[in-house]
């Protein structure tokens, strides 16, 4: 179940940001998403926030929370799991 969410999030990142040359296997579960990792930027974060809220109902209000949540796909998955439970 946990692995499904990680895979699902990788697909969501690729589709939302139109990363046409990247496949889910290219994204490491613990690899950095921003900066020298996958190379995402602040505008990408804004796009992802909208997609995540739409799909999972989770809210990432600002960069203070975002820096922690967007560290890797694993940290993002953990945030989605925890906050979906809270919202349920």
């Amino acid at each position, binding site marked *: 179940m946990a692995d499904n969410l990680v895979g699902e999030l990788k697909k969501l990142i690729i589709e939302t940001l139109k990363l046409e040359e990247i496949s889910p296997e290219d994204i490491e579960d613990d690899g950095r998403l921003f900066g020298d990792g996958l190379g995402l930027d602040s505008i990408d974060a804004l796009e992802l926030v909208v997609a995540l809220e739409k799909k999972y109902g989770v809210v990432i209000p600002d*960069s203070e929370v975002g820096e922690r949540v967007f560290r890797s796909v694993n940290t993002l998955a953990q945030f989605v799991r925890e906050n979906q439970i809270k919202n349920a």
Partner: protein
Amino acid sequence: MRYDETEIKVRFNEVDSWGIVWHGHYIAWFEVGRMALLGRFNLLPQDFTQMGYVAPVVEVKCFFKEPARMDEEILIRTSVLQPTKAALTFHFQILRKKDGKLLATGEETQVLLTLDGRMLYIIPQDLREKLKPLFDYLEEPDSVA
């Protein structure tokens, strides 16, 4: 989408040694257009600061189609799209007034930060309300021919 319109005249210090407007000045012209539009709705930088926000530009695009020359009267047309994320994307058209020739188009994106540098991922309700009259105005049919 409606555009707001403001006029300028090309100044001597804006043309290069080829007699045409140096490309960098178009970005300053975008700023003239943006301030004219935002000023009408009390959304100038100081208004943002009073609410506890700043809105830095993070992306600029400009497409140059025809040159502008000294003393020509220029129309700067400015609009901004209803945001789908926590950013404001402005659109610009630069036209020569005498014949309506489109000289350049551009786009600029601003994000929102708190005064202590926290980037907002969601547009806060107070700012959303303050922006509403601007978007209501821009959604009216374009009155500019």
